[in-house]
């Protein structure tokens, strides 16, 4: 059994008009980079706020670094780094003041790392936070979260507002840290290409529900498209678990299936042609999300 940095059981959050998160069972292994993916409004931010102990769940529970986020929130937050989607930093503070302020709150603050990142992002230390561009404020929030070398980093859309070069440099900085210590990173994003590069686990949520959660490589190896051609009229596609998406054309099936489906046993009659094709993460997620909508 692998060690989990985050485990939730049936975690749910209902607001009067919307079920923001529904029965979420998240399992984030220690030392992983976990891509938490979904369209805007899928429930990612609500989930992260519950993991931080900032929002109470309607039902279910969560264990984060072995602690209960709602009862042991302040102890937990000592070991967490969090970058919110919309950071509200203290606008009247100067950059260097907010750095020393945050340093005073975190026992594990690392000045060397903070300076390394300040240099990387080239932030003016004497300016007031409120005068910085949105991208710069984002960079500052990242520095504040990373410099205490937290055991768990919760990053809500962390690289939005960074240009491609800064984005790459930032991701590398995270990777270097991850190698040095057993750090776990949960990264929410709607940008698949960025997550695809660095994540080793991914979860996809939509409308508050988990559609899939898996090691990224397994997902790419197990989910595939099958195009099956028949000599005459294509029969009905059987209802089987593991068929994520099924399209029936007059003389063929176009299926997207996971590892539970064996093409040979699926066929009610001999096919004239079976083509197998692997899919990109984007295509895989589209198949899962499409299945949900039906």
């Amino acid at each position: 059994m692998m060690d989990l940095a985050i485990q939730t059981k049936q975690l749910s959050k209902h607001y009067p008009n919307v079920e923001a998160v529904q029965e979420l069972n998240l399992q984030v292994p220690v030392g992983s980079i976990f891509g938490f993916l979904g369209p805007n409004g899928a429930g990612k931010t609500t989930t992260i706020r519950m993991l931080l102990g900032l929002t109470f769940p309607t039902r279910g529970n969560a264990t984060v670094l072995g602690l209960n986020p709602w009862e042991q929130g302040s102890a937990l937050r000592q070991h967490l780094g969090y970058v919110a989607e919309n950071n509200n930093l203290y606008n009247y503070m100067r950059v260097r003041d907010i750095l020393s302020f945050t340093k005073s709150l975190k026992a594990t603050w690392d000045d060397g790392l903070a300076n390394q990142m300040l240099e990387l992002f080239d932030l003016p230390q004497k300016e007031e936070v409120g005068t910085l561009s949105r991208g710069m404020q984002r960079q500052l929030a990242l520095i504040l979260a990373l410099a205490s070398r937290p055991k768990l980093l919760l990053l809500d859309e962390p690289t939005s507002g960074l240009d491609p070069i800064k984005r790459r440099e930032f991701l590398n900085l995270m990777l270097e840290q991850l190698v040095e210590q057993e750090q776990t990173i949960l990264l929410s994003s709607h940008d698949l290409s960025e997550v695809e590069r660095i994540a080793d686990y991914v979860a996809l949520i939509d409308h508050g529900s988990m559609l899939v959660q898996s090691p990224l490589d397994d997902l790419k190896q197990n989910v595939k498209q099958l195009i099956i051609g028949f000599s005459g009229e294509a029969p009905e596609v059987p209802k089987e678990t593991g068929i994520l998406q099924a399209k029936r054309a007059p003389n063929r099936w176009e299926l997207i299936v996971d590892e539970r489906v064996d093409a040979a046993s699926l066929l009610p009659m001999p096919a004239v042609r079976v083509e197998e094709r692997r899919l990109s993460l984007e295509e895989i997620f589209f198949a899962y999300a499409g299945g949900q909508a039906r």
Partner: protein
Amino acid sequence: MLFHVDASSSVPIYVQIVDQVKSATASGLLKAGEQLPSVRELAVSLTVNPNTIARAYQELERDGIIYTARGRGTFIADTSQRLTLEVRLKTLEQHIERLLVEAYHLDISKAQLLDLITRKLTEGEGARE
């Protein structure tokens, strides 16, 4: 940089790296005894997860393409004393099984399949000469 990854490809990143090391050793671009970058170096230079690189190296080590000398690093193995014939045949057998399944579904006869293989082998010999 010898290695590159296409993150949006349908081929998992660790498989891309395994394939690249294999073809670089097969073509002689990487020579026996040559040192590979560490997991960490390669992870950062490609901006990919270190676990992904580690998995690729594990796979390559299992296949006898590379070896790790404790404390010194990872090196390309001497291919002449790589794997026993038995292990190599076993690996190939899995590929052949997949080929046979595919051939069955495509309704390719035994004779047609053998023909095709012979033709491909001849083409390969021609290219190497």
